[in-house]
């Protein structure tokens, strides 16, 4: 299958400041890709370049097989900007109908789209009276218009409550299942972890890591930590058997490389009933994220 989106050695500078440095990536049809990175890492810049809103300095870029910002690409790509804004004097329904008309779609679909994002009851109120999350939903509704091949969503869950976030990701799953590619940026690591196929980490304009969460976990090779709680009377004995552990109160904490995980586990189980409880903590997404972000000098 031909990729929906291809970036090759894309570079963008603002004056003397590098916003993107030789970024290369591809996104396949039906793939959900999350773009992570610190504030100012270049996520929004990359998205605006993909949409053809701002020019880039060098590199190659193909969006649904066309040049970014060309009429062919614009017909296939939907965008949700970072802070979705609309004219406050229009109602949600009027705004969506306008966007439908611009895409050559039937404007009667408007109310259905708003209902899909939970804005049915507010459809005939002016957007000026909407809350931040409601404006964000108008933004989502317009991104669903037509059958876009690529959705570029800049912090789509910003301002959404937890239940709406879950609904939103379910919506995305449906779109991806129908073959749409999704590129979204986020600062909410846990939701990205469960809901996307691939993670990209940008740091200072450089793509420092790319892959599924498992890939990233392996290549980061962060230590696994164990928390062992011995039986009260066996505390000294267990501490002696695990000399590398540090004791905090009644629990012993130790960590080891991914590769030594099973060996360590075997040593602990050998202690049998002297151990009351054991917790294994694999490195969290936050740990992995800060590992890559830090390595790039943040």
């Amino acid at each position, binding site marked *: 299958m031909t990729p929906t989106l291809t970036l090759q050695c894309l570079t963008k500078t603002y004056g003397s400041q590098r916003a993107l440095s030789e970024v290369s990536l591809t996104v396949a049809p039906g793939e959900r890709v999350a773009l992570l990175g610190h504030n100012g890492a270049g996520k929004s810049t990359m998205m605006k370049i993909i*949409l053809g809103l701002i020019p880039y300095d060098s590199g190659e870029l193909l969006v649904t097989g066309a040049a970014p910002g060309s009429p062919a690409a614009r017909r296939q790509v939907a965008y949700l900007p970072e802070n979705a*804004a609309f004219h406050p004097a229009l109602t949600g329904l009027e705004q969506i109908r306008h966007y439908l008309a*611009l895409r050559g779609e039937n404007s009667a679909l408007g109310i259905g789209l708003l209902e899909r994002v939970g804005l049915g009851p507010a459809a005939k109120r002016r957007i000026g009276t909407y809350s931040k999350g409601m404006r964000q939903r108008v933004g989502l509704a317009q991104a669903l218009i037509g059958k876009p091949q690529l959705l570029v969503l800049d912090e789509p869950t910003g301002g959404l409550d937890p239940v709406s976030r879950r609904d939103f990701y379910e919506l995305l799953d449906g779109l991806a299942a129908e073959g749409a590619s999704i590129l979204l940026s986020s600062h909410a690591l846990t939701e990205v972890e469960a809901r996307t196929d691939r993670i990209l980490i940008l740091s200072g304009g450089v793509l420092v890591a790319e892959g599924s969460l498992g890939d990233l976990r392996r290549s980061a090779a962060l230590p696994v930590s164990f928390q062992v709680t011995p039986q009260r009377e066996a505390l000294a004995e267990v501490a002696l058997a695990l000399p590398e552990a540090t004791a905090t109160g009644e629990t012993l904490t130790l960590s080891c490389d991914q590769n030594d995980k099973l060996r360590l586990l075997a040593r602990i189980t050998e202690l049998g009933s002297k151990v009351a409880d054991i917790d294994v903590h694999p490195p969290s997404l936050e740990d992995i994220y800060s590992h890559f972000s830090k390595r790039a000098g943040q």
Partner: protein
Amino acid sequence: MNRITATAGAEFRIAVRNRWVAISIAMMALFSLVLSAAGSSATGTIGADRLSVVVASLTSLAVYLVPLVALLMSFDAIAGEVERGTLSLLLTYPVSRPEILLGKLLAHLAILTLAVAVGYGIAAVAALAVDGEAIAGLPALWRLLWSSVLLGATFLGVGYAASALARRPSGAAGLAIGVWLGLIVLYDLGLLAAIVADNGGIFTTKVFPLALLANPADAFRLYNLAASQATSAAAGVAGAANTIPIWASLTSILLWPLAAIALATAAFRKVTP
């Protein structure tokens, strides 16, 4: 085409909600009423029918008011979208920048036409009510109407260009006021001063007529006064109307809207959201 009319529809709604429709209609109606009332005191002394006299004074009014209303409606068109942050999303839609501009133009021009028609209509009714001869002035009124719409289109285009160049509503408003002052007020004052200084020399005979044609507002005034019976009723630059052929001023008022919209398109193309 569908995209242009959809844009125009949304813009028209916004203008209705922002009271621009009401404000511009009220403004034109009010001034027309005042002029009609003032005109009724100067009866038949000029030898023209009452409507023709009213048209002459409406022309002097329109020169100031139509560009003002047009600039007020248009200065926010692009700068406002940039500031609100709505432009970046709009530009990812399969709609071209000229289409966006034409949509806005269509809506704003419709409002302006409505306002001008209501204002002039009131003046016509008032004149016809007191003077049966006033029918003779209807062609002049019709000419004034469509040339006012062209003048409005010119200044809408100028307003969009200012809006795109300034990129901020406050800057665009300042630029629009500057353009209005420059083209409508200072331009004529400058010409007048130059004529006085020139004292019937080459400037007065060669440059002055061209300078009038080069300004859309002066061309509008020239065209309407030259074509009207009541030239003598208006003062100032009107004297020149006799020396400049009517096709020249007509060409100017026809070309200006195109030039202004081309300028606006060029300026809009340079805007990155």
